[in-house]
């Protein structure tokens, strides 16, 4: 990014789609998992960016600034979703029941975690497993995927997520435990299949 471009984003707004469209789209898609919705969020980001151009101080690169706006759009989406379908007690009970299925009545593993055929330090392998993990994340139920992406992909704080999604901290903890356990099982199935 040239100094001129950073300082005068207004002049280059017409090129945003060409310059940053691909990055923004991939970012949105990895969070929401729906190509149409990802496209829509990117469009909303451009509009919000154009409206907020006057506030852009030029302290960061335009791309980082746009990704910041996109993050808010993604969080707004999940917040709207969670308001439309609030998490009720029965949903929480279902989540707990699903976790319970991994254990016998004494709390011991029914199917203990297997030893995975991976070498965590192998960069190429990490990339390949990252791709498999993306598929597993895409396969999570929508609300769980949204929550997981906010917390473990985006690194948002639990407090921030509670505010954004209007749910309690305990719910976040239980849902995150379910999401992580589900991803572990999914990855294990895929890795052991390919063995």
């Amino acid at each position, binding site marked *: 990014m040239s100094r001129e471009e950073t300082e005068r984003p207004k002049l280059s707004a017409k090129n945003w789609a060409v310059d940053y469209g691909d990055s923004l789209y991939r970012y949105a898609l990895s969070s929401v998992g729906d190509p149409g919705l990802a496209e829509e969020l990117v469009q909303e980001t451009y509009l919000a960016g154009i409206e907020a151009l006057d506030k852009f101080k030029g302290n960061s690169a335009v791309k980082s600034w746009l990704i910041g706006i996109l993050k808010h759009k993604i969080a707004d989406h999940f917040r709207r979703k969670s308001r439309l379908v609030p998490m009720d007690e029965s949903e929480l009970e279902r989540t707990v029941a699903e976790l319970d299925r991994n*254990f016998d009545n004494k709390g*011991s593993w029914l199917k203990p975690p*297997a030893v995975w055929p*991976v070498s965590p330090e192998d960069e190429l392998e990490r990339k390949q497993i990252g791709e498999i993990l993306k598929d597993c994340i895409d396969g999570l139920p929508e609300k769980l995927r949204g929550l997981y992406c906010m917390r*473990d*992909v985006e*690194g948002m704080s639990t407090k921030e997520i509670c505010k954004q999604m209007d749910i309690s901290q305990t719910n976040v903890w239980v849902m995150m435990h379910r999401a992580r*356990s589900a991803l572990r099982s999914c990855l294990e199935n895929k890795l052991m299949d390919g063995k």
Partner: protein
Amino acid sequence: MFISISCKEASRLVSLSMDTELSFLQRVSLKFHLSMCKHCKQFARQINYIRELSGQLKIDPSKAN
């Protein structure tokens, strides 16, 4: 023993420790359990690995095209 916990509780605490600070008793119980249980140790290692990989799925604006 008061610090003895089940695998189910240990797996819950492993995940919980990623989101909040555990109490002293929870920390000791988990550490004790993980030192004895290879399955839970494996579980902890795997979900830490998944979390680490997940953080890398995020597009780094400075590296994205």
